[in-house]
């Protein structure tokens, strides 16, 4: 390992340890429990936003239907745990990942045929179909009521019903997902995805099967969104059609754009900003309006997001 890489790894390790031990070192702060809950939710949505960024920022696929896989994962996890009558983490998380990946395969099969704006239209429309299924297939999904009182899982006898354990589970999963995404985006496969974004025709001329490349990225991103969905079902102990709804897709997109598309930490920053707006802002302020206006301002004035603006500041 070269020296700068070693230094970077050390910074990441220290930052993660600080994050993972937050409940301990902040325990004398009166809002510690409240803050820990918000951080847990930020990390879950950061996983979701990062998976979307693999499509939006790296592969250049502006998906407006990513909630289908977040919600799909949440439903699959809850249904598997309930039907099989088990609280094993491996079962429900595995079902969440598998369900979301299969769903992404079906949606992606059609969607990757469309280009640019049409890809966005198709993902939106197909995700809305998933929403309709979640709403109408009452026997499977509980309809508009969804699942309430979802059990929190156990692993090797560790019970994630305890808030502290759940926090650690989220922190560890977050780290693993970010490491995986870092590995993917710096690999030759990730480079090929960026190549598709920049000039798909040239990539095809070079002999890449770009449709398969795009579909594989779509399934991968869907599976990771499924992880976030399963975690969200443990966090809120509730799964509802809202998890599959367009507003959730848009929220994910806003996180990616605010943070900075095509960067590893941008979506994490974006998730933090959006959730802080939603949870900490006085509740009389209309959250959707604020979100919409922030989104418009970022598209017009700061298309590179916070990460892009920071990078420019460092360079200047």
């Amino acid at each position, binding site marked *: 390992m070269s020296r700068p890489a070693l230094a970077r790894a050390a910074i990441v390790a220290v930052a993660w340890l600080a994050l993972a031990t937050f409940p301990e070192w902040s325990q004398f702060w009166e809002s510690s429990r409240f803050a820990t809950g918000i951080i847990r939710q930020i990390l879950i949505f950061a996983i979701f936003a990062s998976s979307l960024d693999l499509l939006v920022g790296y592969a250049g696929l*502006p998906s*407006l239907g990513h909630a289908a896989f977040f919600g799909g994962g949440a439903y699959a996890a809850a249904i598997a745990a309930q039907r099989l009558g088990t609280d094993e983490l491996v079962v429900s998380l595995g079902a969440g990942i598998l369900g979301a990946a299969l769903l992404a395969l079906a949606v992606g099969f*059609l969607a990757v*045929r*469309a*280009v*640019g*704006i*049409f890809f*966005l*239209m*198709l993902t*939106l*429309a*197909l995700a*809305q*179909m998933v929403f*309709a*299924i979640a709403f*109408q*297939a009452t026997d499977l999904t509980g309809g508009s009521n969804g699942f309430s009182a979802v059990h929190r899982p156990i692993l090797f006898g560790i019970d994630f019903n305890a808030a502290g354990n759940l926090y650690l589970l989220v922190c560890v999963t977050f780290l693993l997902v970010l490491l995986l995404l870092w590995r993917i985006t710096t690999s030759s496969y990730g480079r090929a995805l960026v190549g598709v974004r920049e000039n798909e025709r040239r990539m095809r001329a070079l002999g890449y099967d770009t449709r398969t490349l795009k579909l594989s990225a779509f399934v991968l991103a869907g599976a990771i969104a499924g992880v976030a969905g399963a975690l969200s079902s443990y966090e809120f102990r509730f799964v509802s059609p809202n998890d599959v709804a*367009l*507003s959730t897709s*848009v929220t994910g*997109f806003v996180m990616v*754009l605010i943070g900075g598309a095509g960067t590893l930490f941008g979506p994490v920053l974006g998730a933090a900003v959006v959730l802080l707006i939603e949870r900490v802002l006085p509740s009389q302020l*209309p959250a*959707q*309006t604020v*979100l*919409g*206006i922030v*989104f*418009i301002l970022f*598209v*017009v004035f700061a*298309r590179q997001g916070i990460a892009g603006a920071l990078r420019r500041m460092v360079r200047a």
Partner: protein
Amino acid sequence: MTFEDALQQALNGLSFGALLFILAAGLSLIFGMMDVVNLAHGAFYMLGAYVALSVTRATGSFWIALIVAPLALAAFGLIIEPLLLRRLRGRHLDQVLITIGLSLVIADFIRLRDDWGWGATVRSLPFPAGLDRSIQIAGSDYPTYRLFVIAFSAALAFLLYVLHRRTRLGALVRAGVGDAQMLSALGVDTDRLFTLTFAVGAGLAGLAGVVAAPVFGLQPGMDIDALIYSLIVVVVGGLGSLSGAIAGSAVVGPADTFGKVLFPQFALALIFAIMALVLLFRPTGLLGRVRIGR
């Protein structure tokens, strides 16, 4: 299904298709001219319906609302286009993204305006006087308002066709769809033309909202439903042409209506299946000029 039922459902499908045409025409027009899929189209539709609700309450007349609401939405479009979209000219994806933000703000605005009689509860707009009864068709009663929707939409299609083919403005729009840059080089103020097109598209969305309100009512979420249906119509029919909007709504309207009657559980799956088939085998849509897929 008896013959009477089938006829009734065919009329329902036709009137739903007629409504979808009004909705999709505006989306298609804006796309044809500006290469922007206006994802606030559903929000414009919703806003049109709520403006019509307020106007009808204030004046007691649906017909005044039918004129005022589309004009209000067109005026809104006249403000929004130069304000938000013009500065992003040439950045199509960003223009599309802006319209998502706009639709969030509009939907939230409507949800919070309880004091205007809007808000999050379901509202209804009564059928206009004279069209609130049924007539006998093939031995069963059929609401006259739905027949009015069919006639109204056909008249609108004819009007749009004449405007498009027989007027100077129509010629400019056709030229802009063909090559906006060249049109601008020839000395036409394309910025003004874009703004006007966007305003007409927004007005059409508002018009669809007014026409639909007595049948479907007004509630949160209607914006997304309208957006999804209009997207499906333009994908099936083909984007950017009037005939594409007609073809798409003629397929999707009846298909959706019969789907809901024959297999209520899979109604949505049916129209999505149609969309998937069109996309796989005819990537431009039935009558489109733009390739949506490859």
